């Protein structure tokens, strides 16, 4: 077996691939947060709860409406986006001009309420959700067994991330969006409906959490706590990437997946702290984050 410095290279390749899979997942979640913060300046602590809602949406769709995984992947994010839009219009809009802390506390409160309600309705132990028939099984690679569903996660998340990045950074719609949040009054003078853009952007950002939730349902435990476990890590990723940097969030998500994956191989005990260690180092050396522009 090929080894380098006593490290089994086969095993290492497997760990790197797994890191990338988890990273693409992080990227998807970080992207939603980065859009909402970067464009709307809202620190959305309910993103984790909406991710949980996405996974429960897939479960409820299957068991009560007979929706297959594929329909869930299409419809649940739209439903989550609709919930997000409702939240933005009724709760976040009235405090839009206050300090960032208000939206942080408000969305944190919403997250706690959602989590509490779902614990009350469905219990704390989680619910079963099977991998869709079409994606069962896997491929035997030289260095590991790659389940088809994991391959699907990485392909699907990267397509969504790249598409979103292109939409915001390279298209006219994206330009309106960025300009509208940069200088709302000027854009409104040009006849652009800025409040509508803000609402739709928020809906899109939380819709991404819904996508991640549906993607997660077959592989992770569908439980009320699932969002709060992952949210903190994803926030750290957004901070490392640079608050608000869309491309930064995606790249950092992937990179941190790999860093965490390698830590799980070499020193598992530190796997839930390593990302925060990176965050501390980045804040000390580049306070605006790896891809952020200094204010």
């Amino acid at each position, binding site marked *: 077996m090929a080894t380098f410095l006593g490290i089994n290279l086969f095993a290492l390749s497997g760990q790197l691939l*797994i890191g990338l899979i988890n990273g693409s997942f992080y990227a998807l979640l970080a992207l939603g947060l980065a859009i909402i913060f970067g464009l709307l300046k809202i620190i959305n602590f309910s993103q984790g709860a909406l991710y949980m809602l996405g996974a429960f949406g897939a479960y409820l769709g299957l068991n009560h409406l007979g929706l297959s995984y594929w329909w869930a992947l299409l419809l649940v994010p739209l439903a989550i986006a609709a919930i997000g839009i409702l939240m933005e219009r009724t709760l976040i809009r009235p405090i839009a001009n206050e300090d960032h802390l208000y939206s942080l506390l408000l969305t944190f409160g919403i997250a706690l309420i959602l989590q509490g309600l779902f614990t009350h309705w469905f219990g704390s132990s989680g619910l*079963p959700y099977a991998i869709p028939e079409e994606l069962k099984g896997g491929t035997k690679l030289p260095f590991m067994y790659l389940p088809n569903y994991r391959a699907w996660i990485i392909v699907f998340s990267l397509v969504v991330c790249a598409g979103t990045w292109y939409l915001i950074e390279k298209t006219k719609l994206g330009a309106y969006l960025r300009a509208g949040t940069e200088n709302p009054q000027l854009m409104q003078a040009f006849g652009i409906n800025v409040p509508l853009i803000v609402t739709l952007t928020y809906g899109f950002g939380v819709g991404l959490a819904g996508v991640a939730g549906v993607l997660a349902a077959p592989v992770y435990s569908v439980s009320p706590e699932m969002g709060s476990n992952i949210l903190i890590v994803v926030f750290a990723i957004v901070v490392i990437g640079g608050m608000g940097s869309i491309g930064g969030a995606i790249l950092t998500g992937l990179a941190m997946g790999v860093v965490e994956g390698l830590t799980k191989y070499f020193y598992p005990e530190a*796997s839930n702290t390593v990302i925060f260690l990176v965050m501390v180092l980045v804040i000390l050396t580049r306070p605006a984050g790896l891809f952020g522009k200094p204010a």
Partner: protein
Amino acid sequence: MKVMQKTLLATAMAATMAITGSANAAGLSDDKVKIGVLVDMGGVYADICGQGCVEAVKMAVEDFGGSVLGKPIEVVSADTQLKPDIGSAIARQWIEQEQVDVINGAVASSVTGAVTKVASDAKKITLIAASASHAFTTKACTPYNAHWTYDVVSLANGTVKPIVQSGKKKWFFVTADYAFGHALESVATGVIKENGGEVVGGVKAPLGTTDFSSYMLQAQASGADVIALANAGTDMVNSLKTAAEFGVTETADVAGLLVFTPNAQALDPNVAGGMKLTTGFYWDMDDETRAWSKRYMARMDNKIPAMPHAGAYSSTMHYLKAVQAAGTDDSDAVMAKMKETPVEDFFSRNGYLRADGRMVHDMLQVRIKKADERANGDDIFAIEQVIKGDDAFLPLSKGGCEFAMAKN
């Protein structure tokens, strides 16, 4: 010499207890018996011992008739939020200000450790319905602990021993990186080695890890016959899901060392089907368990009871019968009665409360049913074997509970 000193001390203590016991023996303190149920209402163990434990205790009180020695029985409950400091503060307030006579529930070993300390200092009994650490009847034993439902030793014995003896000798551990996981791993390792097996590797995964795929690859690479999950709750569900996804379950067995029925229900039967585990109780075992479980389900939105719920009922009932028999709620007198009376009900078979506070009863080795074996969503386990209490639990002589060993 030292031994003799200890014996003398123990005898003196026992004598003192007997004296105080008889002095208080006239009836009930405060003209009532008050039971405090400490649970987790909204955290990860809410399904394991939350509202369900409170209802089970209330059921026992109602079945007992609502009063003992002609005085009313009261039930109060509180949420520890799984925090030891909150748990011990509530226990202290209950005992010092609200005349609580006995504590039931007690979920999460960390919380229970803090609570039993407060309760035993005040000479109040804790009926531990839902904690896994075996410390409460060994190193940290007190004359006021009654550990009812299961512990790490009985779980490891029940699950690990038959698998090693069936010829699967090489084990890999996925362990939750905190006190509970470490205890479970070390006890299970002992059982593996005693039976001629070996541990070929392991990882300590932080509590709340979402993705276990890295660990499953490592487990696969180790060439182990069995992957032992020394974790619980969501961690266990996530690790088992990942094991199945990565095809680990095709080459190796997976053994869950602590699996409650709600966790088993949270798993796709095609993923979890076939896994062996140990439990202190299964609702669908026989007519007696079914009859009780139906009554419980009628009060709990049709959720099937897990073992802590049955343990909470059984321990409350046994306690109340002991109060009746002793004619007092004085803890020492009641505990003496509890220890001399066999525990035989729908939950406990061939049970008795040992000197060190361990309630020794038959455990069940079960297998999670596959999808095509299940009649409905509540049909989860197939019972493979009944493990005699004395084979399942750590013997008194090996536990190191000083006051109990001195007595025997």
